[in-house]
């Protein structure tokens, strides 16, 4: 890439192009694809983006700021808070910054809910026992159902005999 020397608007557009090239522009709804002047100034205040050079009273941004903004946006798209981004980007050399952009971990997706299978056994009319496969008390579902039926029968019997008070 040629040496970049541009104003803030062009920088912002360049960041957007680069993010699109890296495939992060639409990664996360929270990430504004193009940082506006206020955002750039804010990152500058945190030392995340270098001050622009001043040439004839105009701010001139370059490759360094472009790469810094790309890195910030990339990490933001991975769900990192600004504090964490500041910690990670602090003090990086240009080469390390490039390496970070190249090797940033893939977007953190919430792990897909593991497929859980339940088996249901009818104990009595209107009463079902749900057993999570592999997470039950370690008994064969049929055996468990058998015991539950016995327990239910005992419970109903007690209930009928003395109004809930067992000896």
């Amino acid at each position, binding site marked *: 890439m040629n040496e970049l020397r541009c104003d803030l608007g062009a920088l912002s557009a360049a960041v957007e192009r680069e993010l699109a090239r890296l495939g992060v522009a639409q990664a996360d709804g929270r990430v504004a694809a193009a940082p506006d002047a206020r955002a750039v100034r*804010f990152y500058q205040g*945190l*030392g995340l983006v270098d*001050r622009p050079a001043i040439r004839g*009273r105009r701010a001139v941004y370059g490759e360094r700021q472009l790469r810094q903004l790309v890195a910030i946006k990339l990490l933001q798209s991975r769900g990192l808070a600004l504090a964490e981004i500041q910690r990670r980007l*602090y*003090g990086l050399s240009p080469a390390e910054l490039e*390496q970070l952009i190249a090797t940033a971990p893939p977007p953190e997706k919430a792990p897909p809910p593991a497929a859980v299978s339940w088996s249901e056994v009818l104990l009595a009319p209107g009463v079902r026992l749900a057993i999570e496969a592999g997470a039950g008390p370690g008994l064969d579902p049929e055996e468990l159902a058998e015991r539950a039926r016995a327990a239910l029968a005992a419970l109903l019997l007690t209930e009928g005999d003395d109004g809930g008070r067992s000896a």
Partner: protein
Amino acid sequence: MTGLPMLEVDDAGATRGLGELRAGAGASPFPLCAVDLKARVAGLVAEVELCQRFANPFPDPVEAVYVFPLAGDAAVTSFELRVGERRLAGELAERAEARRTYEEGLEAGHRAALLEQERDDLFTLQVGNVAPGEEVEVRLTTAEILPYRADGTAELRLPLVAGIRYVPGAPLDRDDCGDGVEPDTDEVPDASRITPPRLAAGLDPGVGLSLSVELLHGAGEGLAGLACSQHAICLAAAPGRTTVELARGGERLDRDFVLRWRLAGATVRPLLLAGRGPEGERPAVLTLLPPPETGHRRPRDVVFLVDRSGSMSGSKMIAAARAGAALLASLAATDRFALLAFDNEVESPDTSPALHAATPEAVARGERFLRKLEGRGGTELLPALKAALRLVPTDDEGRDALLVLLTDGEVANDGAVLAHLQRHPSPARIFTVGVDTAVNRPFLERLARLGRGSCRCVEPGAIDRALGELAREIGTPLVEGLALADGAALPGTVAPEHLPDLFAGQAAHLFLALAPEASAVALTGRGRDGAWALTVPAEELDLPALGALWARARVRDLEDRFRLAEGEQRTALREEIVALSCRHRILTRFTAWVLVDREEIVAGHERRRRLVQPVEVPAEWEEGDGQAMAVPCCSYAAFSMPRIARRIPRMDRLPALRAKAREASGEAEPALKLSRVLLDLRRWLEANRPRLAAGARLPTRQLARLRDDLLTVLQREMPDEVLDELERLFEALEALLDAPPRERPLHAIQVEGLLAGPFVRLLIALAEGEDEGKGGTAGADRFWEAPV
């Protein structure tokens, strides 16, 4: 071959996984790892040793740049670098020369350090060629004379973070001269040197802070009213000595440490302390107290100028508005006033601002205006000050003209503001009221001194205590036209050279070199009822710092002159300052401390990285983008207690300690009524006791912090029933802390909710409940509805 040993750097393992936390989770990538302050106060002179430790977590050598504050009056009297067992002493040199020495040392691969002064209270430290994995320590010592009030209250302020200064002007078409985040501008040509990057909200930089203050006093004399307005402290008392330390571990460097205490009655008098220098010179400090207020006050014309810029947002704005309202309420019917608020523009309750008679209606309107102010915009102080001064009548006989500026003073173009005032002296006296957790005090002091007024700084959390005094003290002096009788001071040695006036409530310090035979200093002046005269006998004191203090005061005068000087005069003044600096070994803006470790060459120094330490956003500052860093400011009263350093005493000893503390403090604390606050506290305890009794698995650090909070509360007077509950809670916490973390019973509890919520608020409320009893002014009371 150089013959110098080369440091071998082990590169293995120095690489870290990019895109991952370096050096393990939670490790800080920032070079500054610890700050330690040790202050020793004898009478009104404080000597502080500041130690900053830097580490290098990177695989290459680094150069660390740290912009940090010191007390504005402080003279930096020594500079040292420690590498392992070796100590290297710094040298003072003319600034450009020192910078060159530093750069050359760095390029040659040596470790080097440079300390420069940017403002009265703002410094830049550079430590270069710190090898990977290495830790180095920078130590510097300072001396200062403490601000002092007529009731004997002394104040020690140890600033811990550089304020965020507003930078006006247009960027300059040249390379910036510093490493900060703002470009240099035509109005602030060194903006890039005084605007360090800030930490993002929620990032703990992992800087360990330790701080201790040793107060020396006569063996039989105690210290009364010792209070720390922004930190929880613990005390250790010994005969003739009281030691103050931070009560909590893990304090952030985000606000000034401010300690106030009252000296024993017998020592509250005019004083002339004289030292002896190596060549027989006699540097001395003269402390003057105002006479009691007598006579009637002349009618006043007061222009209030209130800073409502973005940096004032939140509690600072509320505090400033309350102070303004208290001052309005103190006006007499014969007074006139005008009220202005400024950010990028100047506003007033009137369409065209002018002086109005202080009728109840006008005052009420002013109060309403103040109450509605919200922080926004920039701090364009200079145009606002000009506008305010234009309202001051120039010819009104028989009336006193005053300008009262309420602000945090966080501007970067302080020099331009001062210069304007020097070029266009106003008939109005200028009073500055500084409101901030990390106020720009030296600037406000200089402004007030050049404006023949006085300066008072107040922390937003402690505003109520100061309101009554503010209203009493701002006004006409009790003594003016001070003059020293000939002969006592060597000619040209009195600093400040324009002697200050004496105002109610405030002491004034003068520095001078005593003539060889002089045994006293005689002064004359004009009091309210006629001539005023005073003779103060000299007391000899073995205090080497006096010479440095005198030189610092003298340099301040020369700096004021330099601001306006041109051509040859400018050169001559600069040379005089450099000469004073080198002779008395104090840092100035025209010199710098420098050192180069020529014994070693650090391998890989050509790959050196420059790291600028990001610093905290000051407490109570509210910034955009979720940057609000509001830290509650608690106003803790403190008691003298036997040493409680790290280990908090067991519960069973506390009642005895409290009794002892009451005895030692020598004065009964105002009894606290069982107010709403305490009822809240009980409610809170009831809600949380079951969880605490069940033994919540709280992180040790938070648990210890909660316990320390509680201990601070336990040191206060309060009804027994409340104490009993608090003590039970304290015991529960102690028991939890004694159990190893793994063995603490499991219990889900939201620690953040517990600590950040009700308890901290209660502590604040407790502190404020006490203030309420101490009264204020009528105007202040009406502001209680404000959502503080």
